């Protein structure tokens, strides 16, 4: 158990040491990487443990908030993803951020992020989850805004933080509601509390639980970037690319899915059967995956393509959770983390080699110049588009499709169409980036990146293929043991998914091989359904500005007018009144003095 505590607090200690002591020495990156390595080793050692331990952090009367660690299959498996991808990203960052002036700050941010993420995964109660949830928001803000001199990066960081905060407010309300329902905050005690509540209030238990779950889902909407709070994730690509790989592939965005599944396990899966909130969650996920995949087909920035594909895959996972198949979601999360980190780091390598050129139409022909990156990126693409039987993505996507097929045929249709779109846009990205002729000087001068960069790529490529097979030893949640569920409709699903794959590949190749500019131009998709524009022009202009003017009015009237200004004005006017007393006339003073004496005598004598 001590190991788990070290796992939790080591990154924090490293972050503090980096920030306070090692900023100037240049040791910060090494220390961070070492801590990532140690946490990974500890995570491996903790595999398969089943324990909890906690200490009271704040006690108020009988109520006490605990900081605790819960080890089970879910958390130890997730820790492998977090620390494993984290370690590779740390190593990759060593090379990627080599020339950055603020390396120490960057690695401090990474360590802080690892600390917060570990906290979410290991937490044994909801308050702790919430605390670390917010810490993740903070550290992602720091990392996305690493190049804060750029306005776009600073704005993206702000946007990410604000979107997350919007969701987190709902999350907090949800936690409080659950606390009210069950009377407990620790995961282990909640189910018993819920049963008591169910017995006491059988009529409205479902509705109240639905409301609480929906509120908690708000938190997941924010963190896992579901509609309508998805806008922060593509913008967050302004951060350094390894950060995108860490935050937007493996960890932060997965936290929402992880937390939802944790909630389901905590309250008992059977309580979610037929719950209205579950329906809502499933449809939110399905629509997000569809909308994001549509948007991804028209993006020109390689990182944005990946960002939207992440959104779409997260939509898959959320849909699976909503369909009460959290195991499929966690399995997809597990495999997706590796190959999406691979794709992001591959994109990072390309961007690094092309001197920070991110437009895929200015690349091209990179497969010959960067064979290792090209091949590993290809493997990642294959895993994402779920090439049958050889890639890990195939197995997990199949589970999600099965879940959709068994519960809701419309969602199944959406999911298959999304699979087609995924294949299409990833083929497009791969073909345009790696095949054909080079289309700019930067791409012309590109050459293979150093071993510190391609080594993580190769390891991740191995995981992209193999993670489905080693899910067992890594304690990842793997639903493939439920054979009977698997048999039902298996070939229908397989047929649909392979058809989607083939169609996507064909259309992608036919449309994009040998092209120098995009043959398709769909402004609606290119402009991301105008959602960002809507937020900027409507929400920001009317809501925010109206709200701001309301607050300004309040500020002017109450704070400035009545409280601060009012006090000063009343002091001034009282002073003005008493100024008359200082008349400067000696006789006046004498008269008052005499009057005073008379009054004193009058009151004392009579």
């Amino acid at each position, binding site marked *: 158990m001590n190991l788990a505590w070290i796992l939790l607090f080591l990154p924090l200690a490293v972050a503090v040491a980096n920030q306070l002591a090692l900023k100037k020495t240049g040791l910060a990156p090494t220390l961070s990487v070492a801590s990532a390595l140690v946490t990974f080793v500890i995570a491996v050692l903790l595999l398969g443990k089943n324990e909890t331990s906690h200490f009271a952090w704040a006690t108020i009367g009988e109520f006490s908030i605990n900081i605790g660690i819960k080890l089970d299959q879910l958390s130890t498996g997730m820790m492998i993803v977090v620390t494993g991808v984290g370690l590779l990203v740390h190593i990759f960052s060593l090379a990627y951020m080599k020339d950055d002036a603020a390396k120490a700050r960057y690695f401090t941010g990474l360590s802080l992020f690892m600390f917060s993420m570990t906290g979410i995964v290991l937490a044994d109660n909801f308050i702790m989850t919430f605390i670390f949830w917010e810490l993740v928001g903070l550290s992602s803000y720091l990392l996305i805004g690493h190049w804060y001199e750029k306005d776009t990066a600073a704005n993206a960081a702000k946007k990410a933080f604000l979107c997350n905060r919007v969701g987190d407010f709902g999350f907090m309300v949800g936690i409080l509601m659950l606390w009210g329902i069950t009377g407990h905050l620790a995961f282990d005690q909640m189910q018993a509390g819920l049963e008591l509540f169910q017995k006491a209030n059988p009529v409205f238990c479902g509705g109240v639980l639905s409301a609480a779950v929906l509120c908690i889902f708000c938190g997941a909407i924010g963190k896992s970037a579901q509609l309508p709070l998805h806008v922060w994730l593509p913008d967050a690509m302004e951060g350094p690319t390894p950060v995108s790989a860490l935050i937007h592939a493996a960890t932060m965005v997965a936290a929402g899915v992880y937390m939802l599944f944790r909630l389901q396990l905590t309250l008992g899966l059977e309580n979610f059967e037929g719950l209205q909130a579950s329906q809502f969650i499933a449809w939110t996920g399905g629509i997000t995956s569809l909308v994001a995949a549509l948007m991804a087909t028209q993006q020109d920035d390689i990182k944005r393509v990946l960002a939207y594909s992440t959104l779409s895959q997260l939509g898959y996972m959320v849909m699976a959770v909503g369909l009460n198949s959290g195991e499929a979601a966690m399995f997809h999360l597990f495999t997706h983390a590796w190959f999406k980190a691979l794709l992001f780091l591959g994109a990072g390598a390309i961007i690094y080699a092309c001197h920070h050129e991110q437009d895929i139409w200015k690349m091209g022909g990179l497969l010959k110049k960067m064979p290792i990156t090209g091949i590993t990126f290809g493997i990642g693409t294959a895993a994402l588009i779920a090439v049958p039987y050889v890639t890990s993505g195939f197995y997990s996507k199949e589970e999600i499709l099965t879940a959709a097929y068994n519960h809701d045929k419309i969602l199944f249709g959406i999911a298959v169409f999304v699979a087609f779109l995924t294949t299409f846009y990833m083929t497009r990205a791969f073909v345009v980036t790696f095949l054909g002729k080079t289309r700019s000087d930067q791409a012309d001068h590109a050459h293979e990146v150093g071993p510190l960069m391609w080594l993580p790529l190769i390891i991740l490529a191995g995981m992209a293929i193999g993670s489905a097979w080693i899910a067992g030893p890594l304690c990842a949640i793997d639903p493939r043991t439920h054979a009977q569920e698997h048999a039902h409709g298996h070939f229908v699903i397989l047929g649909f998914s392979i058809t989607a794959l083939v169609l996507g590949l064909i259309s992608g190749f036919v449309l994009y091989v040998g092209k120098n500019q995009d043959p398709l131009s769909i402004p609606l998709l290119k402009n991301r359904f105008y959602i960002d524009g809507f937020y900027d022009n409507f929400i920001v202009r009317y809501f925010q500005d109206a709200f701001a003017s309301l607050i300004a009015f309040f500020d002017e009237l109450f704070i400035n007018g009545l409280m601060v200004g009012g006090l000063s004005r009343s002091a001034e006017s009282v002073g003005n009144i008493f*100024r*008359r*007393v*200082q*008349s*400067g*006339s*000696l*006789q006046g003073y*004498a*008269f008052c003095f*005499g009057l005073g004496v008379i009054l004193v005598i009058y009151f004392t004598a009579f």
Partner: protein
Amino acid sequence: MATLNDYLLVSGLLFAMGLAGVVLRRNIIIVFMCLELMLSAANLSLVAFSRFNPAPNGLPDTNGQMLVFFVVTVAAAEVAVGLAIIVALYRARQTIHTDELTSLKG
């Protein structure tokens, strides 16, 4: 034979005149004299009390008389200081009229 009340009446009149002078007159020297008048009024009442409140041995009460001596000496010192201030004031401002001395007005 004058009674205590007669003395006190005269003393009160003197005091009222002094106070009226202090409040109404503009010339500082007059004001100053009126102040002295008020002190004298107080002295008169003290002496009167002393005279009409004899000690057991038949002599007047000495406390009041001693107090009068103190007041007289202090008044003498006060006059010395006060007149010096008035002279200094006149040198500085060429006036001793209170309605022209209003630099403390707020």
